[in-house]
């Protein structure tokens, strides 16, 4: 992001080509989460809290290692633990780091009515600007991943920023920094896709996970957080990761055709009653003016 604006393309008094002017750098960032090497240590949860300045919240015990049922306005990074019984009867303990997916086509941004309360940077990060947020909660309805969360105290909505503040100065996100197993990676989208595909192939060919694959859903135009899953055909088993996430169709209609129909209907209604008045005029009761009828003078 920040480098994009400071790339030098022309130099005064410079002999020869400008160093780096023709260099094409990829700026779209991506976080890769390899669920197959996650050990559920929650270092990323702690790092997220520390970097973003939140204190540890009350945990909710639900017969699992999971810290709480879902992410919260002040808890953006949550490992979801799921026990899964495979067809052969063996058990798997699935651990998936849940956070904002930074969709290429973000439902939160589409639904938001407040000017610049949600922005999408050229590097793919979708960021909430709480100063512009009016707290309506439409983003909550627009998100297919159940990520934006409303803060009752500030009446603003919060979520993972993909550490935009760190990334913009060339650092990797805090969660990546903290991961001890190397299951979290950060780089450009194409690099991460390549790494994810390599790992998925390894899982299929070597580790016996025939359905291993990469989760980068097309329904939201791809995401800037992608997963390697042992079973990419059933992402739901990883704490409800949607198989084919899309922006809800009611939000699409509301922000698409209904907007046009509604605006035309409102303007049409105003034009309609105006034309009616010009053509037919008011209903005036003649008698009211005392001209005839019951002979009473109008007061």
């Amino acid at each position, binding site marked *: 992001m920040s480098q994009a604006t400071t790339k030098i393309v022309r130099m005064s008094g410079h002999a020869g080509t400008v160093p780096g002017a023709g260099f094409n750098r990829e700026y779209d960032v991506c976080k890769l989460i390899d669920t197959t090497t996650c050990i559920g240590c929650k270092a990323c949860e702690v790092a997220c809290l520390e970097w973003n300045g939140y204190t540890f919240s009350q945990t909710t015990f639900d017969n699992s290692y999971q810290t709480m049922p879902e992410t919260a306005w002040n808890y953006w990074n949550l490992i979801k633990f799921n026990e899964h019984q495979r067809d052969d009867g063996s058990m798997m303990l699935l651990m998936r780091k849940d956070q904002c997916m930074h969709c290429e086509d973000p439902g939160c941004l589409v639904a938001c009515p407040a000017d610049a309360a949600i922005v999408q940077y050229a590097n793919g990060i979708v960021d909430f600007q709480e100063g512009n947020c*009016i707290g309506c909660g439409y983003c909550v309805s627009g998100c297919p991943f159940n990520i934006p969360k*409303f803060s009752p105290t500030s009446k603003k909505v919060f979520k993972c920023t993909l550490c935009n503040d760190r990334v913009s100065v060339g650092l990797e996100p805090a969660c990546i920094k903290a991961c001890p197993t190397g299951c979290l990676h950060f780089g450009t989208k194409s690099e991460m896709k390549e790494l994810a595909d390599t790992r998925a192939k390894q899982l299929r060919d070597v580790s016996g996970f025939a359905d291993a694959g990469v989760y980068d859903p097309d329904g939201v135009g791809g995401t800037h957080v992608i997963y390697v899953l042992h079973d990419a055909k059933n992402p739901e088993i990883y704490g409800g990761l949607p198989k084919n996430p899309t922006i809800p169709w009611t939000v699409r209609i509301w922000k698409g055709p209904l*907007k046009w129909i509604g605006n035309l209907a409102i303007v049409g209604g105003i034009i309609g009653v105006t034309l009616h008045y010009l053509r037919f005029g008011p209903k005036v*009761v003649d008698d009211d003016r005392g001209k005839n009828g019951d002979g*009473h003078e109008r007061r």
Partner: protein
Amino acid sequence: MSGADVAMRSGAVTHGGDRILRYSLVERVNHWIAGLTYIYLLLTGLAFWSPYLFWMAVIFGGGPASRFWHPWIGLVFFVSMMWMYKMWAEDMRTTNADLAWKEKVGDYIRNQDDNLPPIGRFNWGQKQYFWVMFWGIILLLISGVGLWFVEGIPWSLRYLRYAAVIVHVGASLITIGAFIIHVYMGTAMVRGGFTSIVRGEVSRAWAKKHHRLWYEKVTGDTSARR
């Protein structure tokens, strides 16, 4: 205003028989609570509807303030509509006279009122407007509570979150269409109508022309019958 005026019911003949009370003070107060809260909800709602109308939220103290008050004012509007229902539901039932009037609604629109059959206190169109707003506020309240406490709807029932969005917007648009017609007719088109909902009274001639069955009922004067 004397105590007798406050307690006076619709249909009372005042000023020595010259004027007829069409809306009691209580009915007028109720109407204007509903009307003013609706206008607030309309303007702040339009601000959330389109970025080009977001400036309307600025008039009411900015986006967060508009968002904060919109649901509370919505509750006031809802209560005022329930109160109105309690007062007017009986008067708003469609009668045979209304159905005969409805057949001639084209003549009403073209201001050829002499062709219209006589009707009671409210005409068919007014009744339609009342029921649109009544069912509209019920849909708006249910969907509005869903939008207000969106995180209170569990993720497993998220289709309700999605439904709330479209129901709230759809019901709003229908009430806006009805509201445009109501304001036009109440102010510009039907002269005397606006005064009646502000000061309560209409002239005998007005009552006879627009609501003859009601006029005959409250005055006992059937001399106008053809």
